[in-house]
């Protein structure tokens, strides 16, 4: 029973265009969400987060949007760069302050 779902295993985007990575969750009690980026054979690194009191958080080229009624969040990367090619994980913080992870989406930026 996956509480955090990333339904797209992979996504291919042209360099310079917008990348949109989606994430859905089932537990309405989740109130803090994070995106991590992972390169092959490395540990994930924190990218950006959002609290449920906000519907948008922006950090440079990265923006995360949260739609609580739809239990959906998305990560926008604009403009996409070759170095953005990686696996992106969505995670939600549960009531025990543990992270519940999605399966990840592999983003491929084409030159």
């Amino acid at each position, binding site marked *: 029973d996956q509480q*955090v779902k*990333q339904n797209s*295993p992979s996504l291919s985007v042209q360099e310079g265009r917008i990348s949109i990575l989606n994430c859905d969750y089932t537990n309405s009690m989740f109130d*803090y969400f*994070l995106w991590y980026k992972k390169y092959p*054979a*490395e*540990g*994930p*690194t*924190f990218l950006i987060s959002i609290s449920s009191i906000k519907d948008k958080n922006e950090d440079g080229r990265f923006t995360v949007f949260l739609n609580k009624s739809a239990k959906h969040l998305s990560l926008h990367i604009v403009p996409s760069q070759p170095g953005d090619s990686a696996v992106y*994980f969505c*995670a939600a*913080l549960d009531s025990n*302050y*543990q*992270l519940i*992870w*999605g*399966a*990840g989406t592999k983003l491929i930026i084409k030159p």
Partner: protein
Amino acid sequence: SQTIHQWPATLVQPVGSPLSLECTVEGTSNPNLYWYRQAAGRGLQLLFYSVGIGQISSEVPQNLSASRPQDRQFILSSKKLLLSDSGFYLCAWSKGGLPYNEQFFGPGTRLTVL
């Protein structure tokens, strides 16, 4: 600055053999420590976490165990590996205490059980 080390980077072990993966953190004290596993095509699964020396919480039943003999040392072990134990194992740390603090990950260990 804080750093986290994991070793070995890769490991190939036969079924039924023992396992010991080590993780150490430098530059901080009393961190929360975590062991995750990423299986092929799946997200990160939390295996164990520890809020202090000798304090281990297990998230899933399995043939793995964890120990924290020192404040900044976290060890993942198994007495007999199964094929299903293959995967990418990640150690992570966060600053101790609540509320949530960002987790920082080590480089990971690729374990292949044959």
